[in-house]
């Protein structure tokens, strides 16, 4: 198992290298560079702009910039400098990371804690009114664009619930305050719409998967045997069927990460969340290239690690699976 993990991790390195190179190329396709905003401004004469370009290293061709950036990461763990915020990308990134964790973790809990029981209910009550209703709601969640759902929820919050502060993860007063019960309450109040917006888009898939798996397993011989020997229905379902139906879902864990990232990205733009995803968007708009690249690499590592983690967990819960 250990050798498998090491091998998989080593495979990631060339993949990440290719992704970083291609992504760097893609963001160079965006017309102009960071200095665009200054070129519009008559206060900056061409000499100053040239000096800026030189300071930022933007006078060099992109291949050279990529090489230097990569070299600094590999030799010094230095991910570059933010042109816009005048600070190292690493510290900028670390400032935004807590918000990403504070949003993603609850979304995960919300999605899994809701879709598993609903999937089980739908499978055990196949074609009932509840089954149809949940399936329909799941599809609606899948079909509402994140941004539209966010807009509608914000409207409801402001107009019908009279919420004064919408967007962000904390009210103004709590942003830099230390954690307290009041701050936690404030956090929860800002969190729930965000969790619903991001979570609903991935629930439908998980829910239907769980329902399908459980239905397959409920038709198996050993479930019939368990029923025949007179076990309580509750034990048949939870001890025999559900345990086996959950295993394949673990691969969904890795697959749901892209949804989470894209959901948080779009929602962060509209609801003004101070997370890493928002940092990506702002940097992309300003063409603050090292910030864009660093966050992109973070997303890629998260995706690859998520898949690896899912494979490891699968082997761990299912003794039939061996990676040798």
């Amino acid at each position, binding site marked *: 198992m250990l050798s498998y993990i090491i091998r998989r991790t080593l495979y990631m390195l060339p*993949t990440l290298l*290719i*992704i970083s190179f*291609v*992504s760097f190329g*893609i*963001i160079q*396709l*965006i*017309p102009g560079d960071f200095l665009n905003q200054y070129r519009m401004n008559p206060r900056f004469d061409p000499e100053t702009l040239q000096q800026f370009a030189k300071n930022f290293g933007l006078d060099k061709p992109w291949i050279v910039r990529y090489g230097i950036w990569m070299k600094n990461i590999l030799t010094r763990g230095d991910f570059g400098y933010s042109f816009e915020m005048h600070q190292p990308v690493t510290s900028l990134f670390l400032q935004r990371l807590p918000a990403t964790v504070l949003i993603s973790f609850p979304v995960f809990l919300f999605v899994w804690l809701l879709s598993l029981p609903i999937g089980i209910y739908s499978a055990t009550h196949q074609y009932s009114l509840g089954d149809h209703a949940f399936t*329909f709601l799941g*599809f*609606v969640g*899948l*079909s*509402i*664009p*994140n*941004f*539209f759902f966010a*807009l*509608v929820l*914000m*409207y409801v919050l*402001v*107009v019908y619930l009279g919420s004064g502060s*919408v*967007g962000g993860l904390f009210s103004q007063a709590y942003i830099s305050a230390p954690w307290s019960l009041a701050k936690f309450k404030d956090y929860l109040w800002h969190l729930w719409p965000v969790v619903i917006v991001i979570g609903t888009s991935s629930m439908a898939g998980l829910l239907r998967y769980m329902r399908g798996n459980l239905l397959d397993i409920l038709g198996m011989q050993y479930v019939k045997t368990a029923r025949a020997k007179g076990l309580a229905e509750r034990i048949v379902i939870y001890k025999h069927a559900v345990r086996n139906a959950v295993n394949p879902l673990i691969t969904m864990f890795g697959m749901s990460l*892209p949804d989470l*990232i*894209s959901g948080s*990205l*779009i929602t962060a*733009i*509209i609801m003004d969340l101070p997370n890493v995803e928002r940092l*990506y*968007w702002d940097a*992309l*708009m300003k063409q603050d290239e090292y910030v*864009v690249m660093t*966050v*992109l690499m973070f*997303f*890629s590592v*998260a*995706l*690859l690690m998520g898949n690896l983690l899912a494979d490891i967990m699968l082997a761990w819960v299912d003794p039939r699976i061996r990676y040798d």
Partner: protein
Amino acid sequence: MTKERSLSQGKLIWRRFKRHRIGAVGGITVLILVFLTVFSGFLGPYSYATSFKRYPLAPPTKIHFFAGGSLSWPFVYPSERLRDPVTNRQRYVENTSIRCPIRLFVRGDSYHFWGLFQTDVHLFGVEEPCKIFLFGSDKAGRDIFTRTLFGGIIDLSIGPLSLVAGFILGILIGGLSGYYGGKIDILIQRTIEVFQSFPAVPIWLALASALPKQWSSTMTFYGLVMIFSLLGWPGLARVIRGQFLALREMEFTIAAKASGASDLRIIVRHLLPNITSYLIVGATLSIPGAILGEATISFLGLGIKEPMTSWGLLLNQANSISKFRDTPWLLIPGLFIVVAVLAFNFLGDALRDAVDPYSVKGMH
């Protein structure tokens, strides 16, 4: 039902599909949306670009059915724009002294019907001084109803178009990978893995902002199509490879090979027809992704540009709460996105059940 034996595969699929009621609802909804879009010039009372400078952000026009307590032909009142002297907010007040009946087949702004002929006949409309904005008007005083119908052209066509390009790549590469196996397969599979490790939406946004600003709306549209197909093929290639790996071991493939058929002939004549149904389902299920993608990108201002329009771009005017708190009708086009995506999802789901010969769902 003595004829049951001779039913073709196609007929069986159609029969299973019809039993899937919600799938049929999805299919009908798609057809209605296509109809609304195709006849958007005729169904909308104005042209998509006509802006009434004196009517910015007007609420949906109320249609009245009763005049003085008795039933009457539907009519509207002209509205006047007033400014609140204290808050400086604008509001519209109906002037009940004039009535404008809604007329059918009226002459209005002229439009081209799909390049076939030019006409100025609209299904309905009202005469001056009235205006009819079923979904309200936007910042520039344009009719949101007309623009929503018109925006459907982009949203409903981007899915199928990005499929075509993505499918050609997917079939070609996935087919090669599955049919030949061995080293080619390993190489292609590795490439696909790398492609799938890209964080999709962040890369979309980067690619969309790379589309040159001076491009026309049509060019931008094809640019988006290219982006979607470029990112869509790897998933499809995987599925096709899996199917081909299984099919190439089948007796009929071996028989074809033994009788001297070329690789190309085997792929095109023997293998592809066997996976057509999977392709149709895959196509239907990937359309929602393209619609959502276009809507998101245009909403963020990176896609289709004014005065052209799409459902996502229409929502761009409502991109922060302060901009739509008093004008919630700006959100109406979003409902069309939800309905369209939902309809395609239902349709695809039903098709998947229908083409799968092992499914027993529709059969009991």
